[in-house]
């Protein structure tokens, strides 16, 4: 599907907000889902679509929140208004939407966007959002911010004060997205407090729609052989309990 870029807002050197027209896309966009975006030109090693979470969506547009990581995201981030990009989606399984609950959101770096969309869709919930990053430039609106260098919010990781927070407040449900080691740590702490957790995972993808089995994540199996699920189709959102963390 060709989607027109309506607006490209630079947040800082690393992060860009890209708003697209969703004309022609009938499916509803749900928090936790993603799209894949093809680059407008042939770049070596970048012919596959790049998976990007949905950050916001309304009836006529959707917005992506992109961090420049390599050549592909750099080109995307610098796409100019009115460019038509080849986009597939919305793809994958969404977060479970709750109403009237106490909810904890925990994100790291570019794990921020799907939780932001989730936050908009959680009805009548009391939400606490912890967000962390390496530098001040990785921090976006939230309730508790952490940076590894202490340049913004608290110095430390999102997990630094997590047990304290959990000791002080009860949560019905938690959602998390960020780098794998962070998710692993978060899952292990929340398990101690018996709080259900949904995580959104990242894996290298080829098809993005479930046919190639390339984006495998190991999940709990009830036979001897390992069991792998597809992040693109069975996920990217999984119950944390299901995942076998490396």
């Amino acid at each position, binding site marked *: 599907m060709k989607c027109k870029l309506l607006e490209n807002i630079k947040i800082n050197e690393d992060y860009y907000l890209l708003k697209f027209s969703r004309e022609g896309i009938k499916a509803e966009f749900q928090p936790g889902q993603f799209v894949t975006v093809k680059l407008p030109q042939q770049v070596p*090693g970048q012919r596959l679509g790049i998976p990007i979470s949905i950050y916001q969506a309304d009836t006529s547009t959707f917005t992506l929140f992109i961090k420049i990581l390599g050549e592909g995201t750099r080109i995307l981030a610098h796409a100019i208004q009115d460019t038509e990009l080849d986009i597939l989606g919305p793809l994958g399984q969404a977060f479970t939407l709750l109403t009237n609950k106490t909810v904890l959101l925990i994100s790291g770096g570019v794990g921020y966007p799907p939780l932001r969309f989730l936050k908009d869709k959680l009805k009548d919930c009391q939400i606490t959002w912890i967000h962390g990053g390496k530098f001040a430039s990785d921090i976006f609106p939230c309730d508790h911010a952490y940076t590894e260098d202490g340049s913004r919010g608290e110095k430390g990781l999102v997990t630094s004060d997590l047990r304290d927070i959990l000791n002080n407040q009860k949560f019905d449900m938690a959602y998390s997205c960020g780098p794998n080691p962070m998710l692993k740590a978060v899952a292990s702490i929340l398990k101690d407090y018996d709080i259900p957790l949904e995580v959104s995972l990242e894996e*290298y*993808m080829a098809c993005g729609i479930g046919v*190639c*089995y390339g984006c495998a994540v*190991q999940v709990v*199996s009830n036979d001897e*052989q390992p069991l*792998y699920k597809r992040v693109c189709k069975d996920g990217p959102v999984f119950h944390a309990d299901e995942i076998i963390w490396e």
Partner: protein
Amino acid sequence: MNLKTKLNKLVFQNPITTASGTFGSEMEEYVNFNKLGAIVTKTITKERKAGNPSPRLYETEWGLLNSIGLQNPGVESFITETIPLYEKYQTPLIVSFSASTQEEFMEVLSRLESVNSISGYEVNVSCPNVENEGLAFGVDAQVVNELTAKLRKLTKKELIIKLTPNVTNIVDIAIAAKEGGADSLALINTLLGMAIDPMTGKSRIMKKICGYSGSAIKPVALANVYRVAQAIDIPILAMGGAENYLDVLEFIYAGASMVAIGTANFYNPAITEKIISDLSQHFSKYNLTMDKIRGKSF
């Protein structure tokens, strides 16, 4: 337009099919399956296969590395869960299967024979043969010949042997399969490839040596198809880097009766339909038929 073609026993409305492992029922949203010449399904095995640990994929400069490890739910689940998804289409269904012993190949085929909606088989011999030091079945002409002969006895349906290009002389293997009773040959499976993160030395793929596909391998695939087509008379289902109708024409000129689209499905899931429509226009415009151009490269 007359895009009709055939392998040995099967006739197809057009020469475009899907490469095993790169296509699935999830594509329904993007492709009208009734438009395809045939559908080749992802390789299945007797029992469920877990597949390889991640990362399983890496896009190199000009191609794709994969190490899926034949993840599949096993033949029983395939028959009950997957086959029905295709039964609503008229398009011939070709089922790819594999095994780690000759006996097991026979068991899987026998089981599949009970399913009427299957039109033919693609035998994936690129996997390790536990009876032969783990060497791929497909690298040994003798083994390919024996295995083909055993499978031939079990089915009257189109029996396609899918060859690996990672051999000294693919013509030897092709002859062995033909003499074993293969109806047709599929080639090529992936090349062996690898990629390394130059900053850390870490292999991009957990299993290190893996399969290499996509546009980058097209010249190799064409050379293999051409060599086999020149050497023996057997229908060829060609694949390896075909991305558009011009690539398909190259394969047909080299000797292919059908062409499967693999990696290109990942760049655009609707690509097969687009190729069929482009090819159809091209055939009309130049008044071509498959017979006029197949194997006619000079």
